[in-house]
């Protein structure tokens, strides 16, 4: 589906199929169309083109859209949207009341879900009396208690401080494992997406760049954008010349690449900083790796690791290399870089 606002195309030919019980994240920078997509799924927005189906039933199309209240979904908002005029219990009970459940059953369900999110002791409080994290838990309880067909989360953790955010990521995944609700999670934080999701759809400028499991996304990014957005990386542009792939002032034998036959013409790779090894002496020749000489041009000690920038001799390219804390190299020191072509992820041509 697509969605345009006047001349601006916010979502451009988005296509995704969710399996029942699956947790999928929409990940991308702000303005990439992920929230618009989510609001289309929720029924707050009508697609300009394309359709949304749920269990084989058409629920959104440019001609008509099933209103949000008839979709049986629930959503967690960036602002939590906890109603300040109702207590915690009243907030949580709202969806059940709308569904006309008997009062006794509502009371039981509310207490049970408040237990699950560890908020039972605060049931009588008003939202203003809760901390951000507690409000977040109320929002989760309110959304889950109705057993929605799909749970939608719109940057739910962006208003929390860093520690709490980390805790809540695991909490959200725990709740998913417990209730197995099909979930769409919108975030711009890759760590959030990787902790919570079965699959991640990386979005950029309204389009889906890649949909994959978190590990595959990191190890095998398919586009420059994905490679740069998920973690840090080095982008290497090369040209296939006979038996070699020539880069900026160094070359790697073509046969060392996986799928060597497919390489042709202009090629680009993503290589993670921790996949490059640094040596003070030339390492013994090995079958897999390529060794090139370079010079340390910038370094920073970050406690958990060293962050080096190394420039291959004669080249303009600067490679980021992550090394363990005890691997100390001085500024301007001459070093040898060991690159493993099997770690280099081939990117689609732009």
């Amino acid at each position: 589906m697509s969605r345009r606002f006047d001349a601006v195309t916010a979502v451009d030919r988005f296509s995704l199929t969710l399996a029942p019980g699956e947790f999928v994240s929409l990940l991308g920078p702000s303005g990439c169309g992920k929230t618009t997509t989510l609001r289309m799924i929720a029924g707050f927005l009508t697609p300009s083109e394309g359709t949304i189906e749920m269990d084989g039933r058409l629920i959104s199309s440019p001609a008509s859209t099933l209103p949000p209240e008839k979709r049986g979904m629930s959503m967690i908002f960036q602002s939590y949207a906890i109603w300040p005029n109702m207590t915690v219990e009243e907030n949580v009970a709202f969806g059940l009341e709308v569904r006309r459940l008997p009062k006794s059953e509502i009371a039981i369900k509310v207490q049970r879900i408040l237990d699950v999110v560890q908020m039972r002791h605060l049931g009588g409080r008003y939202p203003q009396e809760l901390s951000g994290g507690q409000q977040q838990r109320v929002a989760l309880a309110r959304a889950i208690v109705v057993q929605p067909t799909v749970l939608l989360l719109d940057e739910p953790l962006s208003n929390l401080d860093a520690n709490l955010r980390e805790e809540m990521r695991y909490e959200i995944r725990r709740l998913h494992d417990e209730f197995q609700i099909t979930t769409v999670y919108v975030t711009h934080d890759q760590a959030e997406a990787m902790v919570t999701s079965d699959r991640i759809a990386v979005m950029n400028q309204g389009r889906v760049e890649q949909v994959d499991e978190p590990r595959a996304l990191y190890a095998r990014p398919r586009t420059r954008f994905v490679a740069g957005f998920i973690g840090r990386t080095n982008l290497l542009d090369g040209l296939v010349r006979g038996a070699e792939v020539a880069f900026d002032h160094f070359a790697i034998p073509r046969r060392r690449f996986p799928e060597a036959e497919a390489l042709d013409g202009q090629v680009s790779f993503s290589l993670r900083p921790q996949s490059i090894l640094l040596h003070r002496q030339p390492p013994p020749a090995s079958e897999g790796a390529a060794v090139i000489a370079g010079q340390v041009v910038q370094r920073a000690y970050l406690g958990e690791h060293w962050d080096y920038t190394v420039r291959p001799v004669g080249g303009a390219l600067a490679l980021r290399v992550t090394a363990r804390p005890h691997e100390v190299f001085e500024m301007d020191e001459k070093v040898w870089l060991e690159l493993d072509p099997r770690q280099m992820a081939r990117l689609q041509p732009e």
Partner: protein
Amino acid sequence: MTDAAAVARRWRHLDKSVFVWLLLIALLLVLVINPLARLLWASFQHPETGAFTLENYAAAYGRWRYIEALINSLVVGLAAAVLCIVFGVPMAWAVSRTDMPGKGLVWAAVLGTFIMPNYLGAVAWILMAGPNAGRLNRAYSALTGAAAGPFNVYSMTGLVLVIACYSFPYMFVFTRSALDLISSEMEDAASTLGAGALRTTLRVTLPLALPAIMGAFIVEFLEAIALFGAPALIALPARFQVMTTMLWQMFEFPPRVQVAAAYSMPLLLITVFLFWLQYRLIARKGYVALTGKGGERRLVRLGPWRWVLLGYCLFVTSLSFFLPMLVVLQAAFARAWGRGFSLDNLTLRNIRFVLIDQPATRTATPNTFVYAAAASLIALGLALAIAYIVARRLVPFGRALTYVAMAPFVIPGIVLAIGFYAAYTSKPLVLYGTAWILILAFATRFLPIAYTNSDAALRSINPELEDAARILGGGRLLALRRVVGPLLRRGLAGAFILVFIPATRELSSAIFLYTTGTQVLSVLLFDKSDEGNFEVLSSMGLILVVVTVVLVLIGFRVVGRDFLLRRTAT
């Protein structure tokens, strides 16, 4: 898929609340568009045949005394607006930027001025500066031994002064809110470059507030030319006319609606044009100081001059509030106001007469408050619904609705009344002669106040609160009832009071639309003015003021101290 199934699905998917919105939009058309359209149409309509004609315009501008009234209006408007600057700007600067003492008192006096209806102010000024008997004249005679005092309120000057006294609070509020937003750093920047306090104020502070002052100047001018009460009480005895009094005379039996419609066109056009200009002035982006955050502010130390400034503030508010209030109180409780302040002159007879004995006020008093309450509720309900429709983009032409809801803001009350008269005295919808025409005219007149307040209240609520109710299965109307409604309550209480207060004292539209049995206090007060019974007039005015004060105090409690003179009017 078959067509029938597709239609069925579209129906199922349709948000049914759309019908409610359409109904409200229709009501808006009845209230705003139809009267305006009928006014315009009437101005081109032959009184007998109903055919298209330009005769009405010829009649309206064919006589010198009609033109003269128009010129008088412009002169009075300009002079009053200038006087408002003289009154309002120094006070605003004193309260906002200086260490002048007694700011609370000055503020309260401005509020008091704002609460006094202009026609009551006019009555008070007649008591104060009427030739011979006026208190100021008698005080002058007593002091100097002269036979007669120099003051005469029945003059162009008197009218200008009275109008300025009761409209300068706008100037004060506009200027003050602009000054409040100018950071001291702006002034410090001038000081560090060697400018003294006076130069800094004149070259930096006031110029930064200039767009606001200009905007207020335009508002004051428009207020002055659209005013009916004070001019009718003062200009008519002084034997000169302004546009509004002329329009009123055109409505003397038999009413010449078509000519009045034609005659009101310049008033309408000037108003629309100047409000547009004012909007542009305020919206100018060059004055960053007025759009950004305030930043730190320090007060200018005035030294001994602060007493001079306080003296000036008290002088102005004496003219507008303290003295008029005093004479009104005295007259309301006096057997004969001319006998002055003495114990044996005190009586509750007037109040009793107004509240209980006089049949006309016995109906007018409840009428006033019932109509005002009904008008406030209608205006508020409609405004809220329109603001909601626009904010949530429920219909494709939302911006246009905003303009329609705000349009009465640029229609002088008197013109609106003529439009209502033209639209609802004949079939298909005859409202003239019923209370509804007054209620609906009041509702329309104050719709913009209701709209700006509803809009602000609505914007303070995160739409996600409502989305959350909907995604959990509540329809839009349920979300409104359970979530949005309860959250709006406080904001709407303030808005209700802000509409109710002007509706209780509205004169300029009521005077054209009332009939026997639907009189309100303002109309009655005006009607009784030519009998010269100032004790009764003062009592009626006092009742209005007391009710207003009570409402304002409730407003303070419920909504907060600044709700009344907030700059939400534009």
